[in-house]
C-alpha cells in the first residue's frame, strides 16, 4: 500500500505515540479487533495493480462490480489458464450446399484447425435454407374444383409459378405480377386465390377440413386500410387523437374518484345512521318531516348494514359518545386535570376548507365558535360539528353523483340517438315504435331536465346551499356545464321531434 510506504519513509519523523503505547486499553482493543480478513494479492499481479483494485474496508462499494465468486481471486485463476496455448486458426475453403447441388463456387474463411481425419463439416448456415411446398394441381383437379369466375387457367398457373419461384413472398409476387397481360390484382387478391386453391385441394385430396390456410381477404383489406390511415394521419389529426385519449383518461379517473367519494360517504352515513338510531332518538323524534319516510330509509339502511357488516354494527351500538364518522375529538382517559374546553378543540387534521365550512354554518345558526364549556354543550357541540362535516361530504358526493348521472345520460342519449334516429319519437303521448325504449327514454328525459330530483318539504334556506363544496370534477364550472349539457339535450330533443 502506498500509505504504508509513506509511513515508512516518514517513520523517523512521526512521533511514535501510537506505536509505543503501553496503554492497556489500546492493546486490548487491538487484540479484540482480531485478524482482518484481507484478501491476499494474487501472485501474478503487480503490486501497484493490486493496490488499485483492493479495498481495505469492505464498506466502500466499488464503482464497477467485481466478480466475487471465488473471493476475489478469479484473476488468479485467469492467470493460471493464461499459461495455456492459443488454438490455431486455418484459412480454409468451403462451399455452401444451399446454393444447389451443382454449385462449384468456392469461398474461403478462417476456421479452427480441425484434425484432418474428421469429415468436412457442412456449412453451418446452410440449414436455414428452407423451402416452401407449393402444391401442384392436375388439369382434372383444376376443372373439377378450382374454377373461378375472376381467374382463368393461365393466370392461376402464372400465380403458382411465381409462388414457387419466390417462396410465397407475396409482396414480390405482387410486384412481379404482369398488369398488362392480366388484370390488376392486389396482394390480397393474389393471396386469396392462392389460399382458396390450397384449401380446396387439401379438402379434395384428403376429404378433411383443415385450418391451415385460413385467410380472410376482407379482413386483411380492412386492416391494411386502417394501417394506412394510421400512417397517413396529419400532424393535426394525431394531436387531436392524443388529446382525446388524454381527455378520456382524465374523465375515467374523475369518474373513479366520484365513485370512490360516493361509496365512501354512503358507507359513512350508513354507519352514522345506524349509530344514531340506537343511541339517541331525541333529535329524530322531534323533527317535523314525515317519519314514515325516514323509517323506511332507516330500515333500508339497517338492512344494508346488517347484510354487509354484522359485527361492527353491534359493537358500535354498544359504545356511546364518539360518532364513527366526522371528527374525532380528543378524549381524556388518563388520570389528570383537564379543562372542559380542551375537549372542544378541533383536531388539526381537519383541512382548512372544512374549518371554513364549520364556521360558516355556525354563523348561520348564530352560534359562536367556542361556546361556554358545560358538559351537555360540549357533547352536543362536538356532535354538531361532526354532522356539519358529514353534511359537507355528503354534498360533495351528491354533486359528484349528479354529474355522473348527467354524463351517463348523455352517453346513453348519444348512443340512442345514433342508432334509433328515425325509429322512435320522444313524444310521451307517443306513437312510439320501440315501446321498450320509450318509457325509459322519457324517464331519463325527465331526469335530465330536472337535475334536483325529489321535492323538499323544507322551505327555509338550506344550510348546505350556503357553502360551495369542492368537486374533483371541474369545480368551478360544474353548474355551467350542467346547464350546457341540459341545453344540448334539449336541442337534440328538438331535432328528433322535427325529424
Amino acid at each position, binding site marked *: 500500500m502506498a500509505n504504508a510506504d509513506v509511513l515508512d519513509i516518514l517513520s523517523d519523523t512521526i512521533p511514535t505515540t501510537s506505536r509505543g503505547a503501553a496503554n492497556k486499553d489500546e492493546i486490548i482493543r487491538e487484540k479484540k479487533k482480531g485478524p482482518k480478513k484481507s484478501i491476499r494479492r494474487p501472485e501474478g499481479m503487480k503490486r501497484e495493480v493490486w493496490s488499485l483494485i483492493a479495498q481495505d474496508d469492505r464498506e466502500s462499494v466499488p464503482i464497477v462490480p467485481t466478480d466475487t465468486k471465488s473471493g476475489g481471486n478469479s484473476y488468479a485463476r485467469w492467470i493460471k489458464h493464461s499459461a495455456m496455448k492459443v488454438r490455431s486458426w486455418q484459412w480454409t475453403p468451403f462451399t455452401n450446399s444451399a446454393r444447389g447441388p451443382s454449385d462449384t463456387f468456392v469461398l474461403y474463411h478462417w476456421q479452427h484447425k480441425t484434425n484432418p481425419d474428421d469429415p468436412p463439416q457442412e456449412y453451418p448456415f446452410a440449414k436455414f435454407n428452407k423451402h416452401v411446398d407449393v402444391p401442384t394441381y392436375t388439369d382434372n383437379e383444376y376443372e373439377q374444383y378450382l374454377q373461378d369466375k375472376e381467374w382463368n387457367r393461365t393466370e392461376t398457373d402464372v400465380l403458382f409459378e411465381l409462388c414457387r419461384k419466390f417462396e410465397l413472398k407475396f409482396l414480390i409476387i405482387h410486384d412481379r405480377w404482369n398488369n398488362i397481360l392480366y388484370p390488376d390484382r392486389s396482394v390480397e387478391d393474389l393471396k386469396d386465390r392462392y389460399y382458396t386453391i390450397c384449401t380446396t385441394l387439401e379438402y379434395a385430396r384428403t376429404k378433411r377440413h383443415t385450418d391451415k390456410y385460413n385467410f380472410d381477404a376482407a379482413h386483411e383489406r380492412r386492416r391494411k386500410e386502417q394501417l394506412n390511415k394510421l400512417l397517413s394521419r396529419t400532424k393535426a389529426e394525431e394531436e387531436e387523437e392524443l388529446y382525446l385519449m388524454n381527455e378520456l383518461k382524465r374523465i375515467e379517473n374523475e369518474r373513479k374518484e366520484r365513485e370512490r367519494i360516493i361509496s365512501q360517504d*354512503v358507507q359513512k352515513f350508513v354507519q352514522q345512521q345506524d349509530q344514531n338510531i340506537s343511541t339517541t332518538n331525541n333529535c329524530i323524534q322531534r323533527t317535523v318531516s314525515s317519519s314514515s319516510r325516514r323509517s323506511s330509509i332507516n330500515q333500508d339502511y339497517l338492512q344494508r348494514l346488517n347484510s354487509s357488516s354484522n359485527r361492527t354494527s353491534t359493537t358500535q351500538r354498544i359504545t356511546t359518545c364518539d360518532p364513527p364518522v366526522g371528527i374525532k375529538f380528543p378524549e381524556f382517559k388518563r388520570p389528570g386535570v383537564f379543562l*372542559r374546553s380542551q375537549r372542544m378543540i378541533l383536531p388539526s387534521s381537519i383541512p382548512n376548507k372544512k374549518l371554513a365550512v364549520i364556521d360558516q354554518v355556525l354563523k348561520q345558526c348564530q352560534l359562536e365558535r367556542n361556546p361556554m364549556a358545560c358538559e351537555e354543550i360540549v357533547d352536543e357541540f362536538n356532535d354538531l360539528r361532526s354532522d356539519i362535516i358529514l353534511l359537507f361530504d355528503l354534498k360533495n358526493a351528491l354533486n359528484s353523483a349528479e354529474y355522473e*348521472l348527467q354524463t351517463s345520460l*348523455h352517453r346513453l342519449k348519444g*348512443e340512442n340517438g345514433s342508432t334509433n334516429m328515425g325509429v322512435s319519437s320522444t313524444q310521451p303521448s307517443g306513437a312510439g315504435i320501440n315501446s321498450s325504449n320509450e318509457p325509459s327514454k322519457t324517464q331519463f328525459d325527465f331526469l335530465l331536465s330536472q337535475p334536483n330530483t325529489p321535492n323538499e318539504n323544507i322551505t327555509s334556506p338550506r344550510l348546505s346551499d350556503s357553502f360551495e363544496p369542492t368537486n374533483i370534477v371541474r369545480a368551478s364550472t360544474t353548474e355551467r356545464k350542467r346547464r350546457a349539457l341540459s341545453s344540448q339535450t334539449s336541442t337534440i330533443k328538438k331535432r328528433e321531434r322535427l325529424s
Partner: protein
Amino acid sequence: MSVVNSESVVTNTRTPVVIIKPILYGNTAKHLGTKRDSDGHTHRWSVYIRSFNNDDLSTYVSKVQFRLHETYPNHARMITQAPFEVEESGWGEFETQITIFFADPNEKPVVFYHHLKLFSTDPDVVAGTKDLVNEHYDELIFQEPSDLLVRLLNCAKAFAPSTDENLATAKEYAIKKHDTIDRVKKARQRVRSEIQDLTERLRITQENIKRVRQRTMDNSSPMGTFSLSIHDNIKREIVD
C-alpha cells in the same frame, strides 16, 4: 417532614372519581380617558381566574402563572394566593397564557390561553360607564385525582356569602347556557334533516346511475365497433 411522608405515601393512590370545578377566567378593561404620555398606555386592565361558585380556589390551586406580553417587565407573573389576578395597564391587545398549578405537585399544570380584549364597540363601554368584561366559562375536570387532591377539592370553602353581583353573574351564565344548548340543539336538527335529505337524493341518484349504466350496456351489445361514437360523446362532453 410529615408533609413529605404523607405525599410519598399518597402519590400513586388515585380514587376513580371525576370531580368538576367550574371556573371563570377572563379580563376586565377600563379606558383611562387619555393617553398617558409617559408610556402610551390607554387602558387599565386585569386578567383573572376565579371560581364560578365563589369558592376559594387556593385550597386546591397552589399558584397561577400569567404570561403577559414580553414587553412587560417580569412578564411571567406568578400569583400564589387568591385573588388570582394580574392588574396592569397597557395600550394593546395580546394573548396571555395562563397556567394553573395544583396543590398536588404530581398533577401536571393546566395551560390555556386567553386573548386580552381592550377595545369594544359597545356604546356603554366606549362611554366609560361600563367596564369591558371578556369572560369565559370553563370547567376543570379532575380525572382520577389523588387522595390528597380529593380531600382538598371536597373541602373547598366559599370566600364569603355570595354577593348580589355573583348571583347576577351566575344567573347570566345559566341563561346563556340554556340559550346555547337550545341553539345547538336546533342547529343539530337542521343539519340532521339536511343530511337525511341529501342521503335520500344521493341514493336516488345512485340508483339512476345504475339504471342508466345498465341501459347503456344493453344498447351497446348489439352494436359493432363503436369507438367512433364514444369519441363523439367525449368530444361533445369536452366541447361544452
